[in-house]
């Protein structure tokens, strides 16, 4: 299953040149490792699991529908979103989400509705992993940042606006 999906994915990218093909072959090998290797091998990143549809959406509703299959958000103070009020440089906006107040968190997603693509990052939370993450995002212009947390089959969210004085998506 994993190998099949990765094959399809690399097939989609055969636009690549000679060196690219060599790299693609390398990726194939890596992606096959989980299948071929012994059970004690560490799992490797596989592009097959990437939610390609969700990342291609340009509106909040479409991205949420593609990622979670639902668009209903419940604003909740249990989702703590830490973003700067003003970002001088939209290319590097530090974002932290802490949903430790919620139990059974399955996924944390970060949406920036005014970016060319709404979904910026999604973090599936494994059992035993704290629903508390920090990363850095690019923002094209002043926009809301929405932290969406999936827990117990519901979507909880907190929205904060970040004022961007210099856009991070070029143009």
């Amino acid at each position, binding site marked *: 299953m994993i190998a099949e999906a990765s094959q399809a994915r*690399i097939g989609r*990218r055969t636009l*690549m040149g000679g060196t*690219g093909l060599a*790299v*693609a072959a*390398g*990726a194939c090998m*890596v*992606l096959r490792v989980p299948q071929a290797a012994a*059970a*004690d*091998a*560490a*799992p*490797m*990143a*596989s*592009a097959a*699991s*990437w*939610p390609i549809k969700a*990342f291609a959406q340009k509106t909040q509703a479409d991205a949420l529908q593609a990622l979670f299959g639902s668009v209903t958000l419940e604003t909740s103070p249990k989702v703590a979103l830490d973003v700067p009020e003003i970002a001088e440089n939209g*290319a*590097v*906006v530090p974002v*932290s989400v802490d949903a430790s107040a919620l139990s059974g968190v399955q996924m944390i997603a970060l949406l*920036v509705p005014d*970016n*060319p*693509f709404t*979904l*910026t*990052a*999604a*973090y*599936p*939370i*494994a059992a*035993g*992993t*704290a629903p*508390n*993450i*920090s*990363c*850095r*995002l*690019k*923002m*094209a212009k002043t926009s809301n940042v929405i932290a969406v947390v999936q827990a117990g089959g519901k979507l909880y969210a907190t929205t904060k606006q970040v004022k961007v004085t210099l856009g*991070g*998506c*070029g*143009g």
Partner: protein
Amino acid sequence: MAHTIRVRAIANGDTVQVQSLIQHPMDSGFVKDSAGKLIPPHYIEVVTFAAGNKTVFTAFWGPAVSKDPYLKFSFKGAKKGDTLTISWVDNKGMHDSTTAPIM
């Protein structure tokens, strides 16, 4: 693409806090180069962190994650001396992985 991953994993009681920095251009596909041509999108799609044979954290990224992406998270179920394996794959099929001891 060797040595693109820097990671620090520190055990504190039963919780391991992980901070990682990956060297990657994370080109969004909207930026033009000095000749006015669009730089094609080139970004990491999936990052996987594994302790032993168990995936403890996965990141799905789009082109709007900053260049040289930083990530911080914590998990339970590993101890000092265990090995953390980090791997990523990008939209061009490039990939890298490394291991780091939990300190």
